[in-house]
């Protein structure tokens, strides 16, 4: 991408002193020589185990924590000198939703308060608040106290707060924690929407890895303060150097038809291997390995259907992001 990255970090370091006893302490590199570029308008996922340094990294990018070494620019501002400007132009949702929600103020009053703090234009305030309340299905609760609505609703309120102003960067620290399936889905759709419609760059952490796979253009996998790998899911998958495979279960396939089908399937580009199993008529299955599978699967299905073979089920077997994540985190000792 030719566009200048919104966030560019080089060799960023943050060290905390961990107290062992009253007089002794040892340093711990919470973030250890991190290089990271975040491009304008992308959704970047930060994955890592508990204590991998995700939150520390986010806080440094948001200007809430001063790095101990390295250089970094966020929105063109230096992380050391211009942290005030950085802080004024990024938004953050913390995993503890109740933070920043005052229980003595109604849902709407809470948003009205933050709208002024975030310096939202007076003319825009009411409209923006209505918009957000409607979108997050909070409209009917606008006059309730936060303490009387459910945890999931409060999480939405926290998200609404962070979206009052459309800052160019939004940090989401576990945005769908505590939400039920429907609520989490709505929030994910919303994240996608604000990313597309307003071009807001989003950096999110989550422990639901499928969520990162759904939402993120790229993911950075962190472990012990280091970024182990950072790429799009498709590229990470490619690095695993494993062929994607697909099992196609079929109805009865006569001997002649089977040879014909195998020959056609094998001739498709990118197909590495193709085999047929199944002595019994009702359990026949084709197995195809290809790299990448995505581009040939449809052709394979077309071929089989053209031969009038009844397909019972198709199971493509790609390494999921979760596999990639576990692979990356567990293999660091080996490499």
């Amino acid at each position: 991408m030719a566009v200048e990255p919104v966030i560019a970090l080089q060799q960023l370091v943050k060290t905390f002193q961990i107290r062992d006893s009253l007089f002794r302490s040892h340093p711990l590199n919470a973030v250890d020589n991190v290089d990271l570029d975040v491009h304008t308008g992308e959704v970047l996922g930060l994955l890592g185990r508990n204590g991998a340094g995700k939150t520390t990294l986010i806080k440094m990018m948001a200007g809430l924590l001063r790095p101990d070494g390295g250089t970094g620019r966020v929105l063109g501002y230096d992380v050391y000198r211009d942290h005030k400007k950085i802080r004024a132009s990024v938004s953050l949702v913390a995993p503890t939703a109740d933070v920043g929600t005052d229980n003595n103020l109604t849902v709407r009053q809470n948003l009205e308060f933050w709208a002024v703090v975030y310096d939202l234009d007076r003319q825009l305030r009411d409209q923006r608040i209505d918009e957000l309340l409607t979108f997050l299905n909070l409209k009917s609760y606008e006059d309730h106290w936060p303490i009387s609505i459910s945890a999931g609703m409060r999480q939405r309120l926290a998200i609404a707060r962070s979206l009052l102003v459309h800052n160019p960067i939004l940090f989401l620290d576990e945005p769908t924690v505590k939400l039920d399936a429907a609520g989490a889905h709505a929030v994910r759709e919303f994240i996608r929407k604000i990313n597309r419609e307003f071009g807001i760059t989003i950096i999110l952490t989550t422990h639901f890895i499928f969520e990162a796979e759904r939402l993120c253009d790229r993911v950075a996998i962190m472990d012990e303060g280091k970024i182990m790998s950072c790429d799009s899911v498709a590229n990470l998958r490619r690095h695993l150097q494993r062929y994607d495979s697909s099992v196609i279960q079929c109805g009865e396939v006569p001997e002649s038809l089977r040879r014909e089908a195998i020959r056609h399937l094998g001739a498709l580009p990118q197909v590495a291997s193709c085999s047929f199993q199944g002595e019994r008529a009702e359990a026949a299955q084709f197995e195809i390995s290809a790299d990448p599978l995505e581009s040939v699967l449809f052709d394979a299905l077309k071929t089989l259907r053209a031969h009038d073979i009844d397909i019972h089920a198709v199971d493509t077997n790609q390494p999921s992001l979760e596999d990639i994540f576990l692979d990356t985190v567990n293999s660091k000792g080996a490499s």
Partner: protein
Amino acid sequence: MTPQSAIIDVSHVSKTYRGVSIDRKESGIGLWIKSAFRLTSNRARTVRALDDVSFQIEAGEIFGIYGANGAGKTTLIKILSGLLLPESGSERVNGCTGIDEIKDQISYISTNGWMGLEWQLTVYENLMLYGHIFGIPTSELRRRCDSVLGLFGMVAGKDKHISELSAGMRQKVTLMRGFLLDRPILYLDEPTVSLDVQSSAALRQILVDAARRDGKTVIVTSHNPVDLSICRRIMLLYAGHVIALGCEAELASPLQGIKALRLTCANHQSGDGAADLVGGLLQLDVVRDVQVSEGNGRENTWRVDLLVHRDGHAASEIIDWFIARDMPIVRMRSAPLTLQELYAYHVDRTTVSGGLA
């Protein structure tokens, strides 16, 4: 199941809350004067948090509760742990009916907030403090602390101060604290909220062991279906009602003739792609339900989740449909129905049949 073998027996329990709503017009000095002179507010709404709930849990069972935000899970567990009196109905927990005895039967592990962890103390000191509050003798307490620290893999971090821990580690401390009390029933409210994948898996194993080896009864609520995969039976809760209860196969039994197909197809159409997809696929007789959402990242794909009839040539028909439209399928799987799909089905069934007032 006979009531004798049930460690928890809840029958016809209901609970209603009085919520207070305030009028947005009231603000400023007006609000002050009104609130200063009107000592009670009578414009209260009532919320029926639990409505005639009955169920039993067997000793040694891992029991799951699944429901949307606000379905009544928290109210239910507060009643089960003796923190809240039901309005009507009765409960028997481990042979106890009195509220004072009930509260000593359950170890309630809530990960909502970090309430009760002392920030200035270390992990170990916190556990010791908590144990002492519950009157566990010191030598016994030391033994138990060491065992839970080992169980959760926190031995190395036992002398860290709470304020130095990451969110996930703090959550482990709240979990450990719950395991410290040797009570027959463990209740975990969203135990894996900020735990990473490995820690969640480890916790599930711990729970399975607790039930199998030590005969503990474990109750879990979660929004993450993976957490409930260890449960023998799952109770679906919706708007204060039990809408279904059973093992996953039982929950799925009304949908026996249905299977799920999940596929991802390229989206190179203009126009309202999602609505076209849903409309088109629903025309097929084999299709019972379709959900379409955008695919991963910027892949420009649609994820299509189909519920199709098991008999017939569902897969072939659907593949033909995509071939005819020249919309390449890039991924496809047939997977069992998710808990959320089962939940949605049961919610539909109950609301449509008018089971809910």
